[in-house]
């Protein structure tokens, strides 16, 4: 059974993706199909199992954080070089606050 169209709209709104009616219909079907595959996980009892966030545990006492030492970074021009719209030293965005 496909996902409820209202739910597809809700997820698309959370993901900030504009979808056409046709895309919503296909995704409603496909997401339901994929979610059905996830049911298999319920066969496993995971009571008391600690979740693993990522596979790179560096070992006891080791941290991926380095000392906070200042060093040269990218220049403003470099940072802005791929901006779709800019104004002087800034990224230009559309109005955030309503008038």
């Amino acid at each position: 059974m496909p996902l409820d169209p209202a739910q597809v709209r809700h997820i698309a709104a959370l993901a900030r993706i504009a979808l056409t009616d046709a895309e919503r219909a296909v995704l409603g079907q496909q997401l339901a199909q994929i979610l059905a595959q996830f049911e298999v996980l319920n066969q496993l009892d995971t009571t008391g199992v600690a979740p693993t966030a990522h596979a790179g545990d560096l070992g006891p006492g080791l941290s991926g954080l380095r000392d906070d030492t200042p060093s040269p970074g990218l220049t403003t021009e470099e940072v802005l070089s791929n901006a779709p719209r800019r104004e002087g030293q800034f990224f230009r965005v559309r109005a955030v606050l309503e008038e």
Partner: protein
Amino acid sequence: MAELWQLSIHEASQRLRRREISSLELTRACLARIHQIEGRVQAYLTVTEESALAQAREADGCLAAGETSPLTGIPLQIKDIICTKGIRTTCASRMLEGYTPVYNATVVARLLDRHAVVLGKGNMDEFGMGSSTENSAFHPSHNPWDTGRVPGGSSGGSAAAVAAGEALAALGSDTGGSIRQPAALCGVVGLKPTYGLVSRYGLVAFASSLDQIGPLTRSVADCALVLSAIAGHDPRDSTSLPQPPQDYSAALGRDIRGLRLGVPDEYFTSGMEEGVRQAVLAGIKALEGLGAVVQPVSLPTTKYALACYYIIAPSECSANLARYDGVKYGYSHQGAGDMWEAMEQTRGHGFGPEVKRRIMLGTYALSAGYYDAYYRKAQQVRTLIRQEFDRVFGEVDALVAPTSPVVAFPLGDKTADPVQLYLIDVCTLPVNIAGLPAMSVPCGFADGLPVGMQLIGPRLSEATLLRIAHAYQQVTQWHDKRPPI
């Protein structure tokens, strides 16, 4: 006599250092090969002819001065998900069609420090999401063994280029099999290193707890050379392990007598093609013939890996790809509307169908009310999968399995049903979930198409995997077979 573009890195490097050939000649030979066959293979998104020739001239200067590394003057391809300063980096997405990085990924900087030559950027599935390159927003790549078939993916352009002689080697990335599966389907060697061994600074993020960069090469000896150049700690990547650089070539040549190899029954799935099964079993026999002790092992959680992966990877992807908002870089929708509408239209137009599907799936799995049922559950299953590998690596030194249950399939064959395509990754996904190193090595042919054998080891066992694979290539010739193109 072999054409220059057919040389291994090992051979080319020796001839460069003896000054029998120049990097300029070698680079020109690869570029000519690209011009000759690229219309049929389409392995590249960008060919950087001019800068490649300039880099080759510079490499020749180093060779003349005697300042050399094994990669000096060697022409390589870089997957288009890895940032190259001044060379557009698109991730095969409309979203980044016009994006030119202002910095190099650490792996690229390390190759350029060694005066390797960058020929251009490899085609791929958009943002690394796919197993055939058919999700590239620009064009699919074609398998050099049969151009009506896919090269695998997502690093399909890289595997196809290496197989066809359009580069001596390539760097790809692997989130769920994206180096190993195309390597298998194109008949080349591909290695996914231990999570954290190779810096990801400058790798465009897909699923950060899974992504790794690694080499695609024609031989295991070449794989060791490239890995030696790119591995080792990088302060710019907080997940980088504190490993000093290592010479992985040093381990090659030692025999594998007495090494214990486990064969996990669960990887020989019901959907597996018979020709693939036969080729992999023959490969295992050959390893036994070299003195390895082969025993069956069991990894019962394998059947949960697919679901686990397709919750974790899309969840992380939905968070990582939130950065494409049309403000800082990339595609930006120009129509009317407020900030939110502009952002939604930017993402609606900039992303292709598979990327949207995964962002939607991940957003769903992380949304209120579903987090515990999906994301948290998948992370717990991830723990069980890791523990199971740990247990098995108490019994054996490495695992041998197929890389892909199928050989290269026809273009268009599996585009209609995403779930069918996801199933192809069943033998490679568990490795990323557990953060282990694994490589695919050519082990034969089925219906004239290459088959890959996968070696999987415990964390930081790259030297052992390379040693096993190298020993195998000393007694087999599969890696010397070249596509007819």
